[in-house]
């Protein structure tokens, strides 16, 4: 089939250079010409460059992603929609998704992070869900550099200002610092929303003759080509592309949120989608593809902010806070009335058509016309070469036991104190006290309280627990194991609060997939995630792939961030991470092993990223999750805290001091494992371990044993004045809690107080 489109007067000639500038390969260009039966117009080149960018097409990642498990009886919507949806009982469901905004945040941290929050909110409320919680997974370079402090301050301010204004509590996340992320920070935002099952709406264009309506903010020239921007390496040249970054308007977002939910519940519309990356182009093409229908759009009808915008600009603009809606024919007036109530504009800009084409007109002139209805998936698929890098193999196989201890390590309290001030481990209160975590009056456990955030579901006894996790260092050292751990740790964190892990969303942050070592990391990490998702029955319901995360030194650590959602049948079971009662027994579920590889201890104390990451036994993880959940539901658990970065000693210290208002001490004896090296026992990051405090050690022990989980009493909760004492064999060391608390709570504020003098904080409101 041949399609017809007319170049606009003044359009440049379609040259190989112009095609290359749009990130389209010669092969891809040939495919476009074959598809059209003619030379494409500039507008068509723009459309293809956006839709066939990695960000929209998943052209390098799709074959690997297809191996992930996506089904479970509770999954109502898997990958391929704006967000995944799972049922949580009582006719209720939660929609959730995580997405990256790495490159925009690298060039303009405040707006980059803010618009990342805005985009993920829209992905969730376009499913018909009211957002109830936000999370953020952030990765930065070393906090020792002014540039990183500037990025941290800007990103946190941007996330806070946006989420706070819209009124969605930001309740959890994870933040890590490592030089590998220098110059290419990762900013992944996750949103969770609540809906009644029958309110679920999909972004599927249907019904020939139905009008297509642009809703929300007007279209300007901002962010043109953001999707292809996200699919390029970050370089100094890209710094010059600064004007592409969009500006967020959380006030309009709040209005759009209310208007969209009202619109969805009105029954006047059949589909709704955010105009996110690649704006009008991708939203219209994706809705058409899902519905297997044709669409026609007239760019002269789109409400614009600036005069003289070309169809190319209108189609590719990434102006924020806009939606594309397919309404039921004849209900245009009702749709406009709902938008007008919220002081927003709505204009009919096109129509669903029977003819299988994707057509764009500028008034009467056809400026783009593609045959078929599968414009996005017609993109070529790539199967890049995968080969593990020699450097990673060398690091993994290094004998870390041969790294000699520093002289100060003779006192493990010294080491513990240093680790507590490592920014990756230290309290993130400096960050989360800038986020409203209590709006909507449903936050049972907010940031820093528990291993995951707990949000009650109003009108039921239930709650959900949510958490993001990923240790990119593990994934770098062994992608398959690292991918498994990312899922297993997220599941463990959610389980520690008393919630059954149910499903995940993922944000796959990797480097340039055309590099064999990067594609190897990607493929293996995804396989590892798949292993864990199958074992733990937490299917993948969607997510986002962010490739080309590179700086001049190379790719960032491969970071497949996991966003986990779990369900508590009774919110009263919500369990925190801190000790609550003097005299309680302290138990360790799981068993320490001689594992130091990939640890924060090696990285922070010895400046070394090496060794094999800890093993991940998925059967053991599953048993552990079962045991902790049973113990919590039986009412035996006063606190539960997973051992992660910094190992057992850090986990114990956190259970003592994380709650600044009521610290408690602990007397610990680890002599049972005296055969392990002291540093592996205290600071090794062996997986599958939980520190529990309980008034009934026998009951917890019996439950753990029944689940086949090793369990041992390791100590007793003591008054704060007793400090944290650790005994191995005949030697005992005692740390005053003030010293530990000052390291843990003071580290990031001290580092960031330097940032305050370096840069001027941007505007914020109340």
């Amino acid at each position: 089939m041949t399609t017809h489109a007319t170049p606009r007067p003044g359009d440049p000639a379609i040259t190989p250079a112009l095609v290359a500038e749009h990130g389209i390969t010669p092969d891809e260009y040939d495919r476009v010409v074959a598809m059209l039966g003619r030379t494409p117009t500039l507008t068509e080149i723009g459309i293809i460059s956006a839709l066939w960018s990695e960000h929209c097409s998943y052209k390098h990642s799709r074959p690997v992603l297809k191996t992930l498990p996506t089904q479970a009886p509770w999954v109502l919507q898997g990958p391929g929609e704006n967000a995944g949806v799972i049922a949580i009982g009582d006719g209720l469901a939660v929609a959730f998704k995580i997405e990256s905004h790495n490159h925009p945040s690298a060039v303009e941290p405040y707006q980059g992070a803010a618009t990342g929050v805005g985009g993920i909110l829209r992905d969730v409320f376009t499913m018909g869900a009211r957002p109830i919680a936000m999370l953020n997974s952030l990765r930065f370079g070393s906090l020792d550099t002014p540039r990183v402090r500037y990025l941290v301050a800007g990103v946190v301010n941007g996330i806070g200002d946006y989420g706070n204004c819209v009124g969605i509590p930001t309740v959890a996340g994870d933040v890590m610092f490592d030089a590998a992320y220098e110059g290419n920070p990762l900013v992944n935002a996750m949103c969770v929303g609540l809906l009644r099952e029958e309110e679920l709406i999909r972004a599927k264009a249907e019904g020939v003759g139905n009008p297509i309506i642009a809703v929300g903010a007007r279209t300007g020239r901002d962010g043109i080509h953001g999707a292809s921007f996200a699919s390029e390496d970050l370089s100094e040249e890209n710094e010059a592309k600064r004007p592409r970054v969009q500006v967020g308007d959380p006030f309009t977002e709040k209005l759009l949120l209310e208007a969209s939910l009202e619109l969805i519940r009105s029954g006047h519309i059949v589909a709704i989608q955010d105009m996110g990356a690649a704006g009008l182009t991708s939203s219209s093409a994706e809705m058409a593809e899902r519905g297997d229908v044709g669409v026609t759009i007239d760019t002269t009808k789109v409400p614009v902010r600036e005069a003289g915008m070309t169809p190319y600009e209108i189609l590719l603009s990434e102006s924020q806070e806009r939606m594309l809606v397919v309404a039921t024919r004849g209900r245009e007036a009702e749709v406009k009335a709902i938008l007008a109530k919220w002081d927003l504009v709505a204009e009919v800009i096109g129509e669903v058509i029977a003819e299988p084409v994707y057509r764009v007109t500028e008034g009467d002139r056809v400026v783009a016309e593609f045959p078929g209805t599968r414009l996005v998936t017609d993109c070529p698929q790539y199967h890049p070469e995968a080969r593990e890098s020699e450097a990673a193999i060398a690091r993994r196989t290094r004998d870390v036991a041969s790294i000699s201890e520093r002289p100060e390590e003779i006192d493990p309290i010294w080491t513990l104190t240093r680790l507590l001030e490592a920014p990756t481990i230290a309290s993130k209160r400096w960050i989360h006290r800038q986020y409203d975590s209590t709006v909507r009056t449903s936050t049972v456990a907010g940031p820093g309280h528990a291993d995951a955030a707990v949000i009650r579901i109003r009108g039921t006894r239930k709650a959900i627990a949510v958490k993001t996790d990923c240790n990119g260092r593990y994934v770098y050292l062994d992608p398959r194991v690292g991918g498994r751990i990312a899922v297993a740790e997220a599941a463990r964190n959610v389980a520690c609060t008393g919630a059954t892990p149910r499903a995940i969303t993922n944000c796959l942050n990797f480097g340039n997939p055309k590099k064999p070592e990067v594609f190897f990391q990607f493929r293996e990490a995804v396989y590892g995630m798949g292993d864990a998702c199958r074992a733990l029955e937490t299917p993948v319901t969607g997510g986002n792939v962010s490739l080309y995360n590179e700086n001049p030194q190379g790719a960032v650590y491969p970071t497949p961030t996991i966003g986990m959602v779990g369900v508590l049948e009774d919110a009263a079971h919500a369990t925190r991470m801190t000790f609550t009662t003097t005299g309680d027994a302290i138990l360790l579920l799981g068993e320490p092993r001689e594992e130091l590889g990939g640890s924060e201890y090696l990285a922070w104390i010895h400046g070394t990223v090496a060794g094999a990451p800890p093993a991940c036994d998925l059967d053991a993880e599953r048993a552990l999750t079962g045991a902790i959940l049973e113990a919590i539901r039986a009412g035996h658990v006063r606190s539960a805290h997973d051992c992660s970065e910094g190992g057992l000693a850090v986990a114990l210290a956190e259970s003592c001091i994380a709650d600044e208002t009521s610290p408690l001490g602990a007397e610990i004896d680890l002599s049972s494992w005296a055969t392990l090296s002291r540093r592996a026992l205290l600071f090794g990051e062996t997986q599958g371990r939980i520190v529990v405090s309980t008034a009934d050690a026998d009951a917890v022990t019996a439950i753990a044993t029944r689940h086949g989980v090793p369990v041992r009493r390791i100590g007793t909760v003591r008054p704060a004045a007793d400090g944290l004492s650790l005994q191995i064999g005949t030697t005992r060391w005692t740390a005053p809690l003030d010293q530990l608390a000052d390291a843990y709570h003071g580290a990031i504020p001290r580092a960031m107080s330097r940032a305050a003098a370096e840069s001027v904080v941007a505007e914020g409101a109340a």
Partner: protein
Amino acid sequence: MTRFVVNVHIVPRKGLLDPQGKAVADSLRTLGFAGVHDVHVGRHLVLDLEAADAAGAERTVREMCGRLLANPVTEDFEIAGIRPA
């Protein structure tokens, strides 16, 4: 009626604590601008409006400042310039 462009500066009232101004002053000194005595951070508004003449435009903008644009409790304003659009 003629169109005028009116520039308005709104600054924190003198003597009030201005943490933002202080932060800027501190960073400037950190950057080596040793001669900085004081900084105040305010807002600059550019209004494009119709009025019979420049005096009328100024009167209108003063009224706007009094009612909405500036908070009389905490802010001072000054008309920084009026020119035909």
